[in-house]
Protein backbone atom coordinates (compact mmCIF):
# COMPACT_ATOMS: atom_id res chain seq x y z
CA UNK A 1 0.00 0.00 0.00
CA UNK A 2 2.72 2.42 1.08
CA UNK A 3 6.49 2.15 0.97
CA UNK A 4 9.33 3.76 2.86
CA UNK A 5 12.12 5.13 0.63
CA UNK A 6 15.57 3.74 1.57
CA UNK A 7 16.78 7.15 2.84
CA UNK A 8 13.79 7.72 5.18
CA UNK A 9 14.46 7.45 8.94
CA UNK A 10 13.52 4.03 10.41
CA UNK A 11 14.86 3.35 13.90
CA UNK A 12 11.95 1.39 15.38
CA UNK A 13 10.91 -2.20 14.57
CA UNK A 14 7.31 -3.30 15.10
CA UNK A 15 5.56 -6.57 14.23
CA UNK A 16 2.45 -6.49 12.06
CA UNK A 17 0.77 -9.92 12.10
CA UNK A 18 4.20 -11.27 13.06
CA UNK A 19 6.04 -9.58 10.20
CA UNK A 20 8.76 -7.03 11.14
CA UNK A 21 8.27 -3.46 9.84
CA UNK A 22 10.83 -0.67 10.19
CA UNK A 23 9.35 2.67 11.24
CA UNK A 24 10.47 6.16 12.22
CA UNK A 25 9.92 7.21 15.86
CA UNK A 26 6.63 9.13 16.15
CA UNK A 27 4.86 7.22 13.38
CA UNK A 28 1.58 5.48 14.20
CA UNK A 29 0.49 1.85 14.40
CA UNK A 30 -1.92 2.56 11.52
CA UNK A 31 1.03 3.64 9.35
CA UNK A 32 2.76 0.33 10.21
CA UNK A 33 -0.20 -1.63 8.84
CA UNK A 34 -0.11 0.32 5.56
CA UNK A 35 3.66 -0.19 5.25
CA UNK A 36 3.35 -3.91 6.00
CA UNK A 37 1.09 -4.31 2.98
CA UNK A 38 -1.56 -6.07 5.07
CA UNK A 39 -4.76 -6.50 3.03
CA UNK A 40 -7.01 -5.64 5.97
CA UNK A 41 -6.55 -4.25 9.49
CA UNK A 42 -10.05 -5.23 10.54
CA UNK A 43 -13.07 -7.03 9.20
CA UNK A 44 -16.11 -4.79 9.39
CA UNK A 45 -18.58 -5.78 12.14
CA UNK A 46 -21.56 -5.12 9.85
CA UNK A 47 -20.62 -6.45 6.40
CA UNK A 48 -17.53 -8.51 7.26
CA UNK A 49 -15.55 -6.73 4.53
CA UNK A 50 -11.88 -5.80 4.64
CA UNK A 51 -10.93 -2.33 5.89
CA UNK A 52 -7.71 -0.33 6.14
CA UNK A 53 -6.98 3.07 7.71
CA UNK A 54 -8.77 5.92 5.92
CA UNK A 55 -8.28 9.35 7.59
CA UNK A 56 -5.15 8.80 9.76
CA UNK A 57 -6.19 11.64 12.09
CA UNK A 58 -8.57 10.14 14.62
CA UNK A 59 -11.89 10.89 12.91
CA UNK A 60 -13.10 7.81 11.02
CA UNK A 61 -12.34 4.86 13.35
CA UNK A 62 -11.55 2.57 10.37
CA UNK A 63 -8.15 1.80 11.91
CA UNK A 64 -9.48 -0.03 14.99
CA UNK A 65 -6.97 -2.84 15.60
CA UNK A 66 -5.35 -4.99 18.26
CA UNK A 67 -2.21 -3.37 19.67
CA UNK A 68 -0.05 -5.21 22.20
CA UNK A 69 -3.03 -7.43 22.95
CA UNK A 70 -5.52 -4.57 23.51
CA UNK A 71 -8.42 -4.68 21.02
CA UNK A 72 -10.30 -1.71 19.59
CA UNK A 73 -7.39 0.73 19.70
CA UNK A 74 -7.45 3.64 17.24
CA UNK A 75 -4.23 2.75 15.45
CA UNK A 76 -3.64 6.20 13.94
CA UNK A 77 -3.43 7.76 17.43
CA UNK A 78 -1.01 5.21 18.91
CA UNK A 79 2.69 5.99 18.34
CA UNK A 80 4.87 2.95 17.61
CA UNK A 81 7.41 1.62 20.13
CA UNK A 82 10.16 -0.95 19.73
CA UNK A 83 8.70 -4.44 19.58
CA UNK A 84 5.04 -3.33 19.35
CA UNK A 85 2.75 -6.16 18.24
CA UNK A 86 -0.06 -5.15 15.88
CA UNK A 87 -2.78 -7.59 14.80
CA UNK A 88 -5.88 -7.13 12.66
CA UNK A 89 -9.21 -7.17 14.48
CA UNK A 90 -12.10 -9.45 13.47
CA UNK A 91 -15.48 -7.74 13.87
CA UNK A 92 -16.21 -6.12 17.20
CA UNK A 93 -13.46 -5.85 19.85
CA UNK A 94 -13.13 -9.02 21.93
CA UNK A 95 -12.63 -7.56 25.38
CA UNK A 96 -12.37 -10.94 27.13
CA UNK A 97 -8.77 -11.47 28.12
CA UNK A 98 -7.73 -7.93 27.15
CA UNK A 99 -5.25 -6.29 29.49
CA UNK A 100 -7.01 -4.07 32.07
Amino acid at each position, binding site marked *: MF*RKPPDAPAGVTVFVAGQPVRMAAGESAAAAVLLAGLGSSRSHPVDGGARLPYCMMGV*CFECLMVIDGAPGRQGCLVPVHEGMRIEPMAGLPDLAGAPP
Partner: protein
Amino acid sequence: MEFDIAIVGAGPAGLGAAIEAAGLGLSVIVLDEQPAPGGQVHRAIEVRKAAGRLDGEDDRDGAALVAAFRASGAVHRPGVQVWWMDPPAGGAGFRLVATQDGASQGIAAKRVLLAVGALERPAPFPGWTLPGVLTVGAAQILLKSGGNLAAAPLVIAGQGPLPLLFASQLAKAGMVPDLILDTAPADAWRRALPHLPGALRGWRQLARGLHLMLALRRSPPHCVARVREIEALGEHRLEAVRYRTEAGWTQVPATILLVHEGVIPNVHAAMSLGVEHVWDDGQACWRPKLGVDGETSVPGLFIAGDAAGIGGWRVAAIDGRLAGLRAAEALGASTDAARRSRLRLERRPHAALRPFLDALGRPREELLAPADATVVCRCEMVTAGAVRAAVQAGATGPNEVKIRTRCGMGPCQGRLCGPSLTMLVAEARGVPPAKAGHLRIRPPLKPVTLGDMAGIPPEDRAG
Protein backbone atom coordinates in the same frame (compact mmCIF):
# COMPACT_ATOMS: atom_id res chain seq x y z
CA MET B 1 -6.52 19.06 39.05
CA GLU B 2 -7.81 22.57 38.54
CA PHE B 3 -6.71 25.11 35.94
CA ASP B 4 -7.74 28.61 34.92
CA ILE B 5 -8.01 27.56 31.29
CA ALA B 6 -8.20 24.12 29.69
CA ILE B 7 -7.45 24.09 25.96
CA VAL B 8 -8.43 21.10 23.85
CA GLY B 9 -6.16 20.74 20.82
CA ALA B 10 -2.49 21.62 20.31
CA GLY B 11 -2.68 22.95 16.77
CA PRO B 12 -2.00 26.60 15.88
CA ALA B 13 -5.13 27.97 17.63
CA GLY B 14 -4.57 26.03 20.87
CA LEU B 15 -0.87 26.92 20.94
CA GLY B 16 -1.56 30.62 20.27
CA ALA B 17 -4.12 30.74 23.09
CA ALA B 18 -1.85 28.88 25.53
CA ILE B 19 1.09 31.21 24.83
CA GLU B 20 -1.00 34.32 25.52
CA ALA B 21 -2.85 33.05 28.59
CA ALA B 22 0.21 31.47 30.21
CA GLY B 23 2.15 34.66 29.42
CA LEU B 24 -0.34 36.57 31.60
CA GLY B 25 0.36 34.24 34.50
CA LEU B 26 -2.72 32.03 34.22
CA SER B 27 -2.56 28.27 34.82
CA VAL B 28 -3.15 26.61 31.45
CA ILE B 29 -3.43 22.96 30.43
CA VAL B 30 -3.41 21.86 26.79
CA LEU B 31 -4.97 18.45 26.14
CA ASP B 32 -4.21 16.92 22.74
CA GLU B 33 -5.08 13.66 21.04
CA GLN B 34 -1.90 13.72 18.96
CA PRO B 35 1.53 12.69 20.25
CA ALA B 36 3.23 16.06 19.60
CA PRO B 37 2.21 19.75 19.38
CA GLY B 38 1.63 21.49 16.03
CA GLY B 39 -1.71 20.10 14.88
CA GLN B 40 -2.18 18.40 11.53
CA VAL B 41 -0.65 21.32 9.63
CA HIS B 42 2.61 21.18 11.59
CA ARG B 43 2.63 17.48 12.29
CA ALA B 44 5.98 16.08 13.46
CA ILE B 45 7.44 19.60 13.13
CA GLU B 46 9.87 19.18 16.05
CA VAL B 47 11.20 15.90 14.66
CA ARG B 48 11.54 17.42 11.20
CA LYS B 49 13.28 20.49 12.62
CA ALA B 50 15.77 18.33 14.51
CA ALA B 51 16.46 16.37 11.32
CA GLY B 52 16.97 19.57 9.30
CA ARG B 53 13.90 18.77 7.18
CA LEU B 54 11.94 22.03 7.56
CA ASP B 55 10.66 23.18 4.19
CA GLY B 56 9.72 26.80 3.60
CA GLU B 57 8.23 29.70 5.51
CA ASP B 58 5.16 27.86 6.85
CA ASP B 59 7.33 25.14 8.39
CA ARG B 60 9.74 27.64 9.94
CA ASP B 61 6.97 29.82 11.42
CA GLY B 62 5.16 26.71 12.67
CA ALA B 63 8.32 25.45 14.39
CA ALA B 64 8.73 28.88 16.03
CA LEU B 65 5.13 28.75 17.32
CA VAL B 66 5.70 25.28 18.81
CA ALA B 67 8.97 26.44 20.41
CA ALA B 68 7.21 29.47 21.96
CA PHE B 69 4.55 27.13 23.36
CA ARG B 70 7.20 24.82 24.87
CA ALA B 71 8.68 27.86 26.64
CA SER B 72 5.30 29.26 27.76
CA GLY B 73 4.87 27.37 31.02
CA ALA B 74 1.54 25.86 29.92
CA VAL B 75 1.05 22.21 30.91
CA HIS B 76 1.05 19.99 27.81
CA ARG B 77 -0.74 16.64 27.90
CA PRO B 78 -0.26 14.84 24.54
CA GLY B 79 -1.83 11.54 23.52
CA VAL B 80 -4.99 11.95 25.61
CA GLN B 81 -8.63 11.43 24.72
CA VAL B 82 -11.00 14.01 26.19
CA TRP B 83 -14.26 12.09 26.26
CA TRP B 84 -16.43 13.94 28.72
CA MET B 85 -17.06 17.66 29.09
CA ASP B 86 -19.60 19.20 31.45
CA PRO B 87 -20.48 22.90 31.26
CA PRO B 88 -20.30 24.91 34.49
CA ALA B 89 -23.06 24.14 37.00
CA GLY B 90 -23.80 25.22 40.55
CA GLY B 91 -20.90 27.64 40.86
CA ALA B 92 -18.30 25.06 39.77
CA GLY B 93 -16.41 25.42 36.49
CA PHE B 94 -16.11 23.05 33.55
CA ARG B 95 -15.37 19.42 34.24
CA LEU B 96 -13.43 17.34 31.72
CA VAL B 97 -12.46 13.69 31.80
CA ALA B 98 -9.36 12.64 29.88
CA THR B 99 -7.90 9.18 29.40
CA GLN B 100 -4.31 8.38 28.57
CA ASP B 101 -3.01 4.83 28.14
CA GLY B 102 -6.03 3.49 30.05
CA ALA B 103 -5.70 5.89 32.99
CA SER B 104 -8.56 8.38 33.46
CA GLN B 105 -8.37 11.74 35.13
CA GLY B 106 -10.80 14.54 35.89
CA ILE B 107 -9.79 18.11 35.11
CA ALA B 108 -11.57 21.22 36.37
CA ALA B 109 -11.24 24.52 34.54
CA LYS B 110 -12.77 27.97 34.86
CA ARG B 111 -12.66 28.53 31.10
CA VAL B 112 -12.44 26.08 28.20
CA LEU B 113 -11.19 26.74 24.68
CA LEU B 114 -11.97 24.22 21.96
CA ALA B 115 -9.21 24.37 19.35
CA VAL B 116 -10.00 21.02 17.76
CA GLY B 117 -9.42 22.05 14.17
CA ALA B 118 -11.01 20.73 11.03
CA LEU B 119 -11.63 17.45 9.30
CA GLU B 120 -11.64 16.63 5.62
CA ARG B 121 -15.16 16.91 4.26
CA PRO B 122 -16.71 13.44 4.29
CA ALA B 123 -17.33 12.75 0.58
CA PRO B 124 -19.38 9.59 0.16
CA PHE B 125 -19.01 7.84 -3.21
CA PRO B 126 -19.39 4.23 -4.35
CA GLY B 127 -16.48 2.11 -3.07
CA TRP B 128 -15.05 4.65 -0.60
CA THR B 129 -14.79 1.98 2.11
CA LEU B 130 -12.44 -0.22 0.04
CA PRO B 131 -8.89 -0.77 1.37
CA GLY B 132 -6.62 1.48 -0.67
CA VAL B 133 -8.98 4.47 -0.59
CA LEU B 134 -7.69 7.15 1.81
CA THR B 135 -7.92 10.91 2.13
CA VAL B 136 -5.23 13.23 0.77
CA GLY B 137 -4.72 14.39 4.35
CA ALA B 138 -4.01 10.81 5.42
CA ALA B 139 -1.35 10.41 2.73
CA GLN B 140 0.17 13.74 3.72
CA ILE B 141 0.40 12.56 7.34
CA LEU B 142 2.16 9.38 6.12
CA LEU B 143 4.58 11.51 4.12
CA LYS B 144 5.24 14.12 6.85
CA SER B 145 5.76 11.74 9.76
CA GLY B 146 7.67 8.96 8.03
CA GLY B 147 8.51 9.95 4.46
CA ASN B 148 6.19 7.18 3.25
CA LEU B 149 5.00 7.13 -0.36
CA ALA B 150 1.85 5.58 -1.85
CA ALA B 151 2.19 2.57 -4.14
CA ALA B 152 1.55 3.16 -7.85
CA PRO B 153 -0.73 3.49 -9.71
CA LEU B 154 -1.75 6.46 -7.59
CA VAL B 155 -4.89 8.48 -8.37
CA ILE B 156 -5.73 11.74 -6.56
CA ALA B 157 -9.31 13.01 -6.82
CA GLY B 158 -10.64 16.25 -5.39
CA GLN B 159 -10.24 19.97 -5.23
CA GLY B 160 -8.92 22.83 -3.12
CA PRO B 161 -5.44 23.82 -1.98
CA LEU B 162 -4.49 20.58 -0.21
CA PRO B 163 -4.25 18.24 -3.25
CA LEU B 164 -2.11 20.89 -4.96
CA LEU B 165 0.16 21.26 -1.95
CA PHE B 166 0.39 17.48 -1.56
CA ALA B 167 1.24 16.95 -5.25
CA SER B 168 4.09 19.47 -4.91
CA GLN B 169 5.36 17.68 -1.76
CA LEU B 170 5.22 14.37 -3.65
CA ALA B 171 7.18 15.94 -6.50
CA LYS B 172 9.92 16.95 -4.04
CA ALA B 173 10.02 13.33 -2.84
CA GLY B 174 10.46 12.27 -6.49
CA MET B 175 6.98 10.91 -7.09
CA VAL B 176 4.38 11.94 -9.68
CA PRO B 177 0.77 10.74 -9.25
CA ASP B 178 -0.44 8.71 -12.23
CA LEU B 179 -3.65 10.72 -12.50
CA ILE B 180 -5.24 13.78 -10.88
CA LEU B 181 -9.01 14.10 -11.14
CA ASP B 182 -10.08 17.70 -10.55
CA THR B 183 -13.60 17.67 -9.12
CA ALA B 184 -14.07 21.45 -8.95
CA PRO B 185 -17.37 22.42 -10.60
CA ALA B 186 -17.15 23.91 -14.10
CA ASP B 187 -18.27 27.31 -12.85
CA ALA B 188 -15.87 27.43 -9.87
CA TRP B 189 -13.56 30.03 -11.39
CA ARG B 190 -16.44 32.14 -12.66
CA ARG B 191 -17.85 32.24 -9.11
CA ALA B 192 -14.45 32.88 -7.54
CA LEU B 193 -13.22 35.66 -9.86
CA PRO B 194 -15.30 38.47 -8.27
CA HIS B 195 -13.44 37.71 -5.01
CA LEU B 196 -10.01 37.94 -6.63
CA PRO B 197 -9.45 41.69 -6.01
CA GLY B 198 -10.09 41.17 -2.28
CA ALA B 199 -7.82 38.15 -2.30
CA LEU B 200 -4.97 40.26 -3.65
CA ARG B 201 -4.60 41.74 -0.15
CA GLY B 202 -3.38 38.28 0.78
CA TRP B 203 -0.92 38.32 -2.10
CA ARG B 204 1.77 36.37 -0.25
CA GLN B 205 -0.48 33.32 0.10
CA LEU B 206 -1.81 33.78 -3.41
CA ALA B 207 1.77 33.88 -4.71
CA ARG B 208 2.54 30.68 -2.79
CA GLY B 209 -0.42 28.96 -4.49
CA LEU B 210 0.76 30.08 -7.92
CA HIS B 211 4.27 28.94 -7.07
CA LEU B 212 2.92 25.46 -6.24
CA MET B 213 1.06 25.31 -9.55
CA LEU B 214 4.16 26.40 -11.46
CA ALA B 215 6.37 23.90 -9.62
CA LEU B 216 4.13 21.11 -10.87
CA ARG B 217 4.54 22.23 -14.48
CA ARG B 218 8.11 20.93 -14.53
CA SER B 219 6.90 17.32 -14.45
CA PRO B 220 3.14 17.70 -14.73
CA PRO B 221 0.94 14.81 -13.66
CA HIS B 222 -1.81 13.81 -16.06
CA CYS B 223 -4.84 15.81 -14.98
CA VAL B 224 -8.52 15.56 -15.93
CA ALA B 225 -10.72 18.56 -15.14
CA ARG B 226 -14.45 18.86 -14.40
CA VAL B 227 -14.86 15.38 -13.00
CA ARG B 228 -18.45 15.04 -11.77
CA GLU B 229 -18.44 11.58 -10.16
CA ILE B 230 -15.91 8.99 -9.05
CA GLU B 231 -16.19 5.31 -8.10
CA ALA B 232 -13.70 2.99 -6.45
CA LEU B 233 -13.84 -0.55 -7.82
CA GLY B 234 -12.40 -3.80 -6.49
CA GLU B 235 -13.31 -7.10 -4.83
CA HIS B 236 -11.47 -6.95 -1.50
CA ARG B 237 -9.27 -3.94 -2.20
CA LEU B 238 -9.03 -1.06 -4.66
CA GLU B 239 -8.27 -2.24 -8.19
CA ALA B 240 -9.58 0.55 -10.41
CA VAL B 241 -11.10 4.02 -10.39
CA ARG B 242 -14.00 5.06 -12.64
CA TYR B 243 -14.75 8.70 -13.24
CA ARG B 244 -17.36 10.65 -15.18
CA THR B 245 -16.86 13.85 -17.13
CA GLU B 246 -19.10 15.39 -19.79
CA ALA B 247 -17.47 12.95 -22.21
CA GLY B 248 -18.75 9.95 -20.20
CA TRP B 249 -17.19 7.30 -17.95
CA THR B 250 -13.51 6.27 -18.02
CA GLN B 251 -11.82 3.51 -16.01
CA VAL B 252 -8.16 3.37 -14.93
CA PRO B 253 -6.25 0.86 -12.79
CA ALA B 254 -5.30 2.08 -9.29
CA THR B 255 -3.65 0.76 -6.13
CA ILE B 256 -4.24 3.89 -4.06
CA LEU B 257 -6.98 6.50 -4.47
CA LEU B 258 -6.65 9.68 -2.40
CA VAL B 259 -9.70 11.92 -2.07
CA HIS B 260 -10.12 15.45 -0.78
CA GLU B 261 -13.13 17.76 -1.09
CA GLY B 262 -12.07 20.58 1.21
CA VAL B 263 -12.18 20.80 5.00
CA ILE B 264 -15.00 21.57 7.45
CA PRO B 265 -14.97 22.59 11.13
CA ASN B 266 -14.79 19.81 13.72
CA VAL B 267 -17.98 20.54 15.69
CA HIS B 268 -18.35 17.31 17.67
CA ALA B 269 -17.24 18.52 21.12
CA ALA B 270 -18.95 21.90 20.75
CA MET B 271 -22.27 20.24 19.91
CA SER B 272 -21.97 17.99 22.97
CA LEU B 273 -21.65 21.12 25.13
CA GLY B 274 -24.81 22.60 23.64
CA VAL B 275 -23.15 25.36 21.62
CA GLU B 276 -25.55 26.90 19.12
CA HIS B 277 -24.55 26.07 15.54
CA VAL B 278 -25.46 27.56 12.16
CA TRP B 279 -25.52 25.87 8.76
CA ASP B 280 -23.02 27.37 6.33
CA ASP B 281 -24.75 27.18 2.94
CA GLY B 282 -21.68 28.06 0.89
CA GLN B 283 -19.48 25.41 2.49
CA ALA B 284 -22.31 22.96 3.23
CA CYS B 285 -21.33 22.34 6.85
CA TRP B 286 -22.19 23.26 10.44
CA ARG B 287 -20.16 25.86 12.26
CA PRO B 288 -20.54 27.28 15.77
CA LYS B 289 -22.28 30.63 16.18
CA LEU B 290 -19.64 32.86 17.71
CA GLY B 291 -19.39 36.25 19.39
CA VAL B 292 -16.27 38.36 19.83
CA ASP B 293 -12.89 36.54 19.93
CA GLY B 294 -14.33 33.05 19.91
CA GLU B 295 -17.05 33.44 22.57
CA THR B 296 -19.82 30.87 22.22
CA SER B 297 -23.43 30.68 23.40
CA VAL B 298 -22.16 28.71 26.43
CA PRO B 299 -20.73 31.12 29.05
CA GLY B 300 -17.00 30.59 29.58
CA LEU B 301 -16.58 28.41 26.50
CA PHE B 302 -14.49 29.63 23.56
CA ILE B 303 -13.79 28.18 20.11
CA ALA B 304 -10.91 29.28 17.88
CA GLY B 305 -9.13 28.18 14.74
CA ASP B 306 -10.57 26.00 11.98
CA ALA B 307 -13.05 24.54 14.50
CA ALA B 308 -14.71 27.97 14.46
CA GLY B 309 -14.78 28.21 10.67
CA ILE B 310 -12.10 27.41 8.10
CA GLY B 311 -9.43 30.12 7.92
CA GLY B 312 -6.12 28.33 7.59
CA TRP B 313 -3.34 27.98 10.14
CA ARG B 314 -2.13 31.58 10.31
CA VAL B 315 -5.62 32.91 10.99
CA ALA B 316 -6.08 30.10 13.54
CA ALA B 317 -2.91 31.02 15.44
CA ILE B 318 -3.98 34.69 15.67
CA ASP B 319 -7.59 33.87 16.61
CA GLY B 320 -6.25 31.49 19.25
CA ARG B 321 -4.19 34.32 20.71
CA LEU B 322 -7.22 36.64 20.72
CA ALA B 323 -9.41 34.01 22.40
CA GLY B 324 -6.66 33.32 24.94
CA LEU B 325 -6.44 37.02 25.76
CA ARG B 326 -10.21 37.36 26.09
CA ALA B 327 -10.50 34.31 28.35
CA ALA B 328 -7.63 35.64 30.48
CA GLU B 329 -9.26 39.03 30.75
CA ALA B 330 -12.52 37.45 31.88
CA LEU B 331 -10.49 35.87 34.71
CA GLY B 332 -9.17 39.22 35.83
CA ALA B 333 -5.87 39.46 33.94
CA SER B 334 -5.13 42.88 32.51
CA THR B 335 -4.57 42.69 28.78
CA ASP B 336 -3.10 45.21 26.38
CA ALA B 337 -5.68 46.72 23.97
CA ALA B 338 -2.94 47.82 21.57
CA ARG B 339 -1.70 44.26 21.32
CA ARG B 340 -5.18 43.08 20.31
CA SER B 341 -5.38 45.77 17.63
CA ARG B 342 -2.00 44.66 16.27
CA LEU B 343 -3.17 41.05 16.14
CA ARG B 344 -6.36 42.04 14.30
CA LEU B 345 -4.32 44.03 11.79
CA GLU B 346 -1.92 41.13 11.33
CA ARG B 347 -4.88 38.81 10.72
CA ARG B 348 -6.31 40.78 7.80
CA PRO B 349 -4.05 39.72 4.89
CA HIS B 350 -4.22 36.06 5.98
CA ALA B 351 -8.03 36.15 6.05
CA ALA B 352 -8.30 38.09 2.78
CA LEU B 353 -7.89 35.00 0.61
CA ARG B 354 -10.74 33.09 2.24
CA PRO B 355 -13.81 34.37 0.29
CA PHE B 356 -11.93 33.60 -2.94
CA LEU B 357 -10.97 30.10 -1.77
CA ASP B 358 -14.47 29.44 -0.41
CA ALA B 359 -16.07 30.36 -3.74
CA LEU B 360 -13.50 28.28 -5.62
CA GLY B 361 -13.91 25.29 -3.31
CA ARG B 362 -17.69 25.12 -3.09
CA PRO B 363 -18.60 21.42 -3.14
CA ARG B 364 -20.10 20.02 -6.33
CA GLU B 365 -23.79 19.01 -6.41
CA GLU B 366 -23.12 15.28 -6.84
CA LEU B 367 -21.27 15.32 -3.51
CA LEU B 368 -24.17 16.86 -1.63
CA ALA B 369 -26.74 14.37 -2.93
CA PRO B 370 -25.18 10.90 -3.08
CA ALA B 371 -27.00 8.18 -5.07
CA ASP B 372 -29.30 5.81 -3.14
CA ALA B 373 -26.83 2.90 -3.24
CA THR B 374 -23.93 4.96 -1.84
CA VAL B 375 -22.92 4.25 1.77
CA VAL B 376 -22.98 7.44 3.85
CA CYS B 377 -22.36 5.91 7.31
CA ARG B 378 -19.14 3.88 7.17
CA CYS B 379 -19.52 2.55 10.72
CA GLU B 380 -22.97 1.01 10.28
CA MET B 381 -22.93 0.74 6.45
CA VAL B 382 -26.13 2.77 6.01
CA THR B 383 -26.85 3.97 2.47
CA ALA B 384 -28.19 7.32 1.31
CA GLY B 385 -31.27 5.42 0.10
CA ALA B 386 -31.94 4.04 3.58
CA VAL B 387 -31.76 7.56 5.02
CA ARG B 388 -34.18 8.86 2.37
CA ALA B 389 -36.53 5.91 3.04
CA ALA B 390 -36.50 6.68 6.78
CA VAL B 391 -37.56 10.24 6.04
CA GLN B 392 -40.31 9.00 3.70
CA ALA B 393 -41.47 6.75 6.55
CA GLY B 394 -41.85 9.74 8.85
CA ALA B 395 -38.47 10.62 10.38
CA THR B 396 -38.22 14.41 10.49
CA GLY B 397 -34.61 14.91 11.57
CA PRO B 398 -31.16 13.28 11.80
CA ASN B 399 -31.85 11.93 15.31
CA GLU B 400 -34.97 10.06 14.23
CA VAL B 401 -33.16 8.73 11.16
CA LYS B 402 -30.41 7.52 13.50
CA ILE B 403 -32.87 5.58 15.63
CA ARG B 404 -34.52 3.98 12.59
CA THR B 405 -31.38 3.16 10.56
CA ARG B 406 -28.39 3.17 13.00
CA CYS B 407 -26.84 5.91 10.81
CA GLY B 408 -24.45 7.77 13.14
CA MET B 409 -24.57 5.11 15.85
CA GLY B 410 -21.14 3.55 15.25
CA PRO B 411 -17.75 4.30 16.82
CA CYS B 412 -17.18 7.57 14.88
CA GLN B 413 -20.44 8.82 16.43
CA GLY B 414 -21.58 10.62 13.29
CA ARG B 415 -18.38 12.54 12.65
CA LEU B 416 -18.34 11.23 9.04
CA CYS B 417 -22.07 10.89 8.28
CA GLY B 418 -23.36 13.91 10.23
CA PRO B 419 -23.17 16.46 7.37
CA SER B 420 -24.61 13.92 4.87
CA LEU B 421 -27.49 13.19 7.27
CA THR B 422 -28.41 16.86 7.52
CA MET B 423 -28.32 17.32 3.74
CA LEU B 424 -30.22 14.12 2.94
CA VAL B 425 -32.97 14.91 5.45
CA ALA B 426 -33.20 18.45 4.04
CA GLU B 427 -33.43 17.12 0.48
CA ALA B 428 -36.00 14.44 1.32
CA ARG B 429 -38.17 16.84 3.31
CA GLY B 430 -37.72 19.74 0.89
CA VAL B 431 -36.53 22.08 3.64
CA PRO B 432 -33.27 24.05 4.06
CA PRO B 433 -30.45 22.13 5.84
CA ALA B 434 -30.60 24.56 8.78
CA LYS B 435 -34.16 23.43 9.38
CA ALA B 436 -33.31 19.72 9.05
CA GLY B 437 -31.09 20.06 12.14
CA HIS B 438 -28.11 18.00 13.30
CA LEU B 439 -27.34 14.91 15.35
CA ARG B 440 -27.48 15.37 19.12
CA ILE B 441 -23.96 14.65 20.31
CA ARG B 442 -23.64 13.18 23.79
CA PRO B 443 -20.66 12.06 25.82
CA PRO B 444 -18.69 9.86 25.88
CA LEU B 445 -17.17 11.66 22.89
CA LYS B 446 -14.92 8.67 22.17
CA PRO B 447 -15.70 4.98 22.62
CA VAL B 448 -14.37 4.12 26.09
CA THR B 449 -14.40 0.96 28.14
CA LEU B 450 -16.19 0.53 31.46
CA GLY B 451 -12.67 0.27 32.84
CA ASP B 452 -11.93 3.81 31.62
CA MET B 453 -15.06 5.05 33.41
CA ALA B 454 -14.41 3.09 36.58
CA GLY B 455 -10.83 4.36 36.50
CA ILE B 456 -11.81 7.97 37.20
CA PRO B 457 -10.36 8.73 40.67
CA PRO B 458 -13.21 9.12 43.25
CA GLU B 459 -12.22 12.74 44.01
CA ASP B 460 -12.63 13.60 40.28
CA ARG B 461 -16.16 12.17 40.00
CA ALA B 462 -19.27 14.32 39.84
CA GLY B 463 -21.31 14.43 43.03
